[in-house]
């Protein structure tokens, strides 16, 4: 039906839309950096832990982290943009830097063994989960359900991992700090 009234299109003109998609892309680059850092940290921490159950938890988490990184890459396709590979590389470097930070914190806090790495995984997963959660909100704000559908399962898995990591970090801290023993 042809309208007789001039229709106002609020913030859906091409220029505004493209600007907002570019800004979303910049966040997705950050998300990819954060997630690459988290994935690298989890993968390296698996190798440092001997306790079989925690090692298994982290090994399974490492598999999930690879899938989460793929999901992060899919976000760019949804908005017709390409990811910055440099950001991903930076993410992996950041993962290594976090391990060094963990070592420093461990020394100053009297912790010993791989606990400090586990603690950094705990913080890194939280950081990455938050970055995905922000992407979900951007999907809602842009009216793009595919973004929401892509990241919601990731956030749910990371939220589940966060509880697990919290339990492991809190359970093992006494062994690390008071007994100075690895696990």
């Amino acid at each position: 039906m042809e309208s007789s009234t001039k229709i106002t299109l609020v913030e859906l003109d091409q220029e505004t839309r493209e600007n907002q998609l570019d800004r979303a892309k910049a966040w997705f680059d950050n998300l990819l950096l954060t997630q690459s850092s988290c994935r690298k940290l989890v993968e390296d921490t698996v190798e440092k832990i001997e306790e079989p159950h925690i090692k298994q938890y982290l090994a399974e988490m490492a598999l999930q982290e690879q899938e989460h990184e793929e999901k992060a890459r899919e976000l760019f396709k949804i908005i017709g943009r390409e990811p910055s590979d440099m950001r991903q590389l930076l993410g992996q470097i950041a993962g290594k830097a976090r391990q060094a930070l963990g070592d420093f914190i461990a020394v100053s806090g009297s912790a010993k063994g791989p606990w400090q790495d586990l603690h950094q995984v705990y913080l890194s997963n939280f950081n990455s989960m938050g970055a995905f959660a922000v992407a979900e909100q951007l999907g809602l704000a842009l009216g793009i359900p595919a973004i929401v559908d892509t990241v919601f399962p990731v956030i749910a898995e990371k939220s589940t991992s966060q509880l697990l990591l919290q339990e492991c970090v809190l359970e093992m801290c006494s062994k690390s700090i008071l007994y100075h023993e690895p696990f």
Partner: protein
Amino acid sequence: MATDYASLRKNTGFSISKSTLKNGTASGSILQNLPTPARPVINASDVVVPEGYTVEPVMVGLSFPTDVSFAPDGTIFVSEGGSSWPTRPYMPARILVRKPSGETEAITMNVQAGPRSVTWHNGDLYFTLKGGYHMQVVRYSLETGEMKILIDALPSGGWHEPGGPVFGPDGLMYFGNGSVTQQGVALPAGFTVDLAKHPNAHDVPGQDVTLTGNNVRSRDPRMPYPYMVESGAFKPFGTPAKKGEVVKGELFCNSAVWRSRPDGTDVELLAWGIRNPFGMAINDDGELYVTDNDFEEKGERAIANDPDRIWHIKKAREPFGSVKTPDWYGFPDICGDGLPVNHPSHLPSRGKAAELLIENPPKWAGPAAFLEKPHSCMCKMDFCRSDAFGYKGELFVAEWGTLAPLNSPRPEDLDHGFRVIRVDVNKGTAEPFLHNKTMGPASSVGGGGIERPVSCKFGPDGSLYVLDFGVAKVTPGNMLAFAHTGVLWKVTRK
């Protein structure tokens, strides 16, 4: 800076200014291929109205709009954004202004929850805002750009919405404030609305009430170990009530309706016990009606089959300043049909059944002027004052639509609402006026028709404007709403 909690929780106002609005104009072809995949098509021919009426979109791409109003010259004002339904994501809280020329601008406000209404009155805009522990009624001068907070003491910070303001033939301002709690007791469901931001929010009665001491047990999601806690009526979450305890009624309560002078002075409490008085309308005879939404069938105080309703606020007919005792309309213990929440007809099929919270309650002020199917979610409304449009004297009501299966397990609740109805308040009957070909939102039933009507008001041109909130997707576990999917529709008699 204040260092005590009472001072910190007092609203301190906010900045407001005008800005340009980034927009364009649309033709029919653009509306068939919008850049928002959540709502890619707007098509008025998919909207059903009675023979002799036409529908057309006027504004497209709105973000969580809540209300519409008009200046006599035809300027349109739409309140939108903030942190609304659900609370994430925040979109800019503002009033969009569309002048008769088509030129637009935005009145932007730096406030979190944002405007829930807009009313043009005597050259000024009045609006209500949520956010923080108090609901506010605000006046904004279109001429000078000055803003004044008229009312800032109404306890809020939870689930339900401000109502009005509307202005009566008596020149007085009428406004409402919904309950903090969803089910009569602060509970952890949907914690982003209340507990996360306002853990100390609670309902406040409009009269002294004696409590039964029936507390509700739930887990406390705020705790490192989410253990069980007990919560009582008119208490913050996790605070139990004692049997026989008296909670003092206050002028500035919630679940209530007031009137005052237009400058916010001489506030008079007319009614309380109204869960969510979001929609308010006064007819030419000065009779005040408010919408109210039903209890939900879920969680730790679940209540089934509670009808949506429109209340007639009879105290509004009494002389200004003469109301000594407000009327009580039932919240948190009486359903819209006048039966208690623990009546067999209201026992839930899921969740824990409700117990009564108030001992020896005040006299119930019902029955309702109109009862609607549960979860229709009646919102803002307006009386038709025009012979030219037809149905003069009838009340046109926007129905946002159900949140089932999130808030009800009943299959029959899945398509309630998603339409505009016209209500004969004298007979207590209604007829559908505007809806899709298949009942339900376009995003579910297909086509480019309506999603969720949130307000409907008659413009100075005699047309009915229907404000469509946009796409809100509901699952058994959550609700997600997509910005830039709201539409203002215009219905004209040929």
